[in-house]
């Protein structure tokens, strides 16, 4: 056992090649971050922090996954950190916003007459004009409050579990479902409005 471990330690310098990181992965990691954060400045900082953090713990890189996967995992945690900070600063605001935002339902829980979902051609996935639908969907998602968007990102992009999202963002599970629900009702309404 010890021998193998030592052998592996010995080979690490061969496996991880930090001097090549920038050339090999900087653009990739930057794209990955930009895709999720949509802010150049922050994305650049995250890439740099990722490399520096990786360098600090380069000895723990065991070559079990590729360097690219390993670096991406580090970046991913940094991105979740950003989500967390962002949502913490806007959380209070967004909660009031959620309550104050347009209510789609009446007192007894019925849909408002004008807000009732109607079939408008997106009920069956196979009949959809995908590209067009995607464009409108992206626009509708961008209208969501930051906290909701963060929840959506963590859920659909990273496939995090509800409990993890709640604890990372410090929201109660009851609030989590309300956010998911409100976000969906809003997106759906936005789609119906903009879909011709």
């Amino acid at each position: 056992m010890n021998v193998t471990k030592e052998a592996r330690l010995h080979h690490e310098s061969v496996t991880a090649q930090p001097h090549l990181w920038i050339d090999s992965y900087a653009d990739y990691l930057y794209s990955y971050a930009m895709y999720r954060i949509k802010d150049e400045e922050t994305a650049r900082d995250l890439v740099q922090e990722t490399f520096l953090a990786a360098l600090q713990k380069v000895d723990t890189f065991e070559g079990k996954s590729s360097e690219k996967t390993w670096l991406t995992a580090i970046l991913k945690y940094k991105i979740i950190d950003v989500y967390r900070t962002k949502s913490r600063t806007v959380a209070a605001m967004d909660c009031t916003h959620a309550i104050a935002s347009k209510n789609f339902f009446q007192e007894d829980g019925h849909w408002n007459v004008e807000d009732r979902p109607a079939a408008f051609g997106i009920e069956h996935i196979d009949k959809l004009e995908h590209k067009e639908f995607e464009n409108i969907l992206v626009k509708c998602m961008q209208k969501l409050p930051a906290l909701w968007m963060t929840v959506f990102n963590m859920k659909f992009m990273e496939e995090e579990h509800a409990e993890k999202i709640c604890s990372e963002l410090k929201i109660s599970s009851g609030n989590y479902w309300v956010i998911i629900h409100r976000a969906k009702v809003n997106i759906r309404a936005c789609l119906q409005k903009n879909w011709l």
Partner: protein
Amino acid sequence: MNKKKTISSNCEKATLLIEKKQIVPLTLMDNLYVKIHLAGCEVCRTYQKQSTVINYMTRKILKQTPTLLELDEDFKRNMQFKIDELLNKK
């Protein structure tokens, strides 16, 4: 106007449960609630269909491989410099 919430009137609760159901399994009671509500509510049946499609498409969009962007050379060289410096210290 003090209207009571009943299973058949409460589209708000039913649609919340429809959302929840797509993420975690519902309790027996909640499942039944949705079933009973949907049996009598065409609007929420439409909602459910659309909601499933939206989830599918959201996932698809958010998981697309991002187009490759490029960092500017100055920034990269600067990072390379920092890394080299740290490597030399080791």
